[in-house]
């Protein structure tokens, strides 16, 4: 890059987010989650543990906040349970929110990793290279959602999370992570890869429904949809379109409408400009009865 470029037409080279930089073609994996359908059953979380070889850390480490749930169900209450007289488990008013890596387009974690262990794939997934990770944990420090999980212990060997025979249930398509590396939701990239390979051998693109993430597959109420956001036939595309949620905006046009919008789609912490790839659909009910 020449000096004249720097001085004169720098603005031509600046980009606000990677969407402008490399247009996603032919894939951009995205998700939408209907919170009105979510019953908080945790099936997605369990499915994720099974699919992605997540270690079950046990009660004590869980209480210490060292759980490895890539997909976690967050519970919120209508009333303030920390207020004086509040109960830990009120009879009603529980709300649930499944939270996993939001696969941000301008991911705060990617720029800060000193060794480039976390990268953006051409199809819009925020990937994690375990072999490259040195465990500086800067990515998690800069993640606004705190959805990155660190291997504080050596779960496969010294902690023996999968004792003999139990290790037979490990998913051979997914690396078992050792001590000292960061990990997080990958949008079940192993399944995406299989689907892409199958489609390629048949000389076509991946069609909607060819690939399901583990959480999506396990969800009894079909609250989770996953698919290709650049494919106009996909359910995710249609949902995002219907909700007027656009990937490359830090504030949606519909939210600026007077009187607010009736549409339910929103993205979490959108205003920080990470451009997350997961859209949530607001609950319809004001309170749970």
């Amino acid at each position: 890059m020449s000096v004249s470029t720097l001085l004169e037409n720098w603005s031509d080279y600046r980009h606000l987010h990677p969407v402008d930089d490399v247009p996603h073609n032919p894939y951009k994996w995205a998700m939408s989650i209907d919170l009105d359908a979510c019953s908080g059953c945790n099936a997605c979380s369990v499915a994720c543990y099974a699919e992605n070889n997540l270690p079950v850390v046990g009660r004590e480490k869980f209480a210490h906040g060292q759980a490895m749930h890539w997909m976690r169900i967050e519970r919120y209450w209508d009333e303030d349970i920390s207020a004086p007289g509040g109960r830990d488990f009120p009879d009603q008013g529980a709300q649930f929110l499944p939270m996993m890596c939001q696969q941000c387009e301008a991911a705060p974690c990617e720029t800060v990793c000193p060794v480039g262990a976390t990268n953006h794939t051409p199809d819009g997934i925020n990937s994690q290279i375990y072999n490259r990770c040195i465990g500086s944990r800067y990515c998690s420090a800069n993640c606004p959602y705190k959805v990155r999980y660190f291997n504080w212990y050596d779960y496969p060997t010294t902690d023996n999370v999968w004792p003999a025979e139990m290790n037979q249930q490990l998913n051979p398509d997914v690396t078992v992570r050792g001590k000292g590396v960061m990990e997080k939701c990958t949008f079940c990239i192993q399944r995406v890869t299989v689907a892409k390979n199958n489609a390629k051998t048949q000389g076509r693109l991946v069609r909607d429904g060819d690939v399901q993430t583990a959480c999506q597959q396990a969800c009894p109420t079909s609250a989770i949809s996953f698919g290709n956001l650049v494919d106009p036939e996909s359910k995710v595309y249609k949902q995002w379109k219907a909700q007027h949620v656009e990937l490359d905006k830090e504030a949606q046009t519909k939210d600026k409408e007077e009187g607010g919008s009736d549409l339910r789609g929103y993205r979490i912490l959108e205003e920080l400009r990470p451009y997350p790839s997961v859209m949530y659909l607001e609950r319809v009910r004001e309170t749970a009865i």
Partner: protein
Amino acid sequence: MKDIREDIAWAKINQDVLKSLENPRKLFWIILFVAIAMVGVAVGCEIYQYQVGLGVGNFDNPHMWGLYIATFIFWIGMSHSGTLLSAILHLMHADWRKPIYRFAEAMTTFSLMTAGLFVAVHLGRVWQIYYALPYPNGRQVWPNFQSPLLWDAMAIFTYLSSSILFLYVGMIPDLAICRDNMRDCWRKKFYTVLSLGWEGTDRQWRNFRVTYLTIACFLIPLAVSVHSIVASDFAMSQQPGWHITSFPPYFVAGALYSGCAAIITLFIILRYVFKFEEYMTLPILKKTVRLTFAIAMVWTYLNFIEYASVWYGHNQVAKDLLIQKATGPYAPFWWAMNFLGSVVPFIMFFKRFQTNIPVLMVVSLLLNLGMWLERWMIVAPTFSHGYYPWTWDHSQWPSFVQWGIVFGSFGWFTMLFMVFCKVFPSVSMYEVKEMVYHRSRETKKLGAVEGAH
């Protein structure tokens, strides 16, 4: 009061300084022993943590960084005063720095070495630490040049290597004095090799001056950039309480502050242990104290700037975090940091305390405690109370493993420093002679009593 007596004979300077290599007071051995014991504690903790995993430090999902990073910043900061004294004051011709700059510079080197250890202790896979360095390799995999952590690694390596060079180059004439005055023992061979055949010829002095000045000029921007880059680790992120434009100057001020306070502490210890009363005089201490007070006020100002920019900014989350710091579980530490950093230095404002050694010893240690708390209060609360309420965690505290390693790092630093002072002349003999010479010339000009030598 004069900075130094102008009638000290040059031979006596040699004698006094060389004596420090031979027979320090008994306190030296006590300090060294305690320091080694402290290192032992840290080594034990590190072995345990290395074997079992970082989880034993009580890290968890929001609390990804803990005392290690806070103490890392503390030690990086500590390193700045050496450069301030030896390079900046050298260029400003403040000659009162001459008897004390050598140990300040050693402090720079050793605190950087201590800080470097925290990077290793902090990493999840320390055995892959070289991935963070841009080394040529067959797979053409490079580190991520966007990451402030990478700038950090490079800045610290540069600063460490140049400060070692600066310390060594500045010591060459003194090493030659040591060589010439030693009986035949390992020391004689050691100093012979290190003094690089120094004979004190005119040509050697000329080259020496130019080299020394060049490294000094090179080191000053480095010192500023190193802590600015450490500040960038935080300022370049988008977390509440970190994403603050004024962080780089704030960090540099904090660094100089804790470094100057540490110089006062070590000044007092060395003066007693190695019987340097003639050289590390009270007027010099007074000047150091005044300098520290001035920097304390700069730091206080920048600290308020930080609070003000958060308070009047539009980031509600950052503002909530500030309130959380002042009222939440970290409140005792946060208030202690403000008290120790901004109120305690006012003791140094009063003339009668500026040369009061016991008071200054306590004050300088308290200031550094305050500055350590400052670093901790930058790192930890952001993790406990970030953007995402579900991951707020106000109840996770560092375990004994983290505390043990932090505790041991002070021992490690003290150990290196004490060994240095026993092996190398910790007062610059040739520069003290220069100082005495200049002073005695001035007195002659004024027509006062002539020096004794």
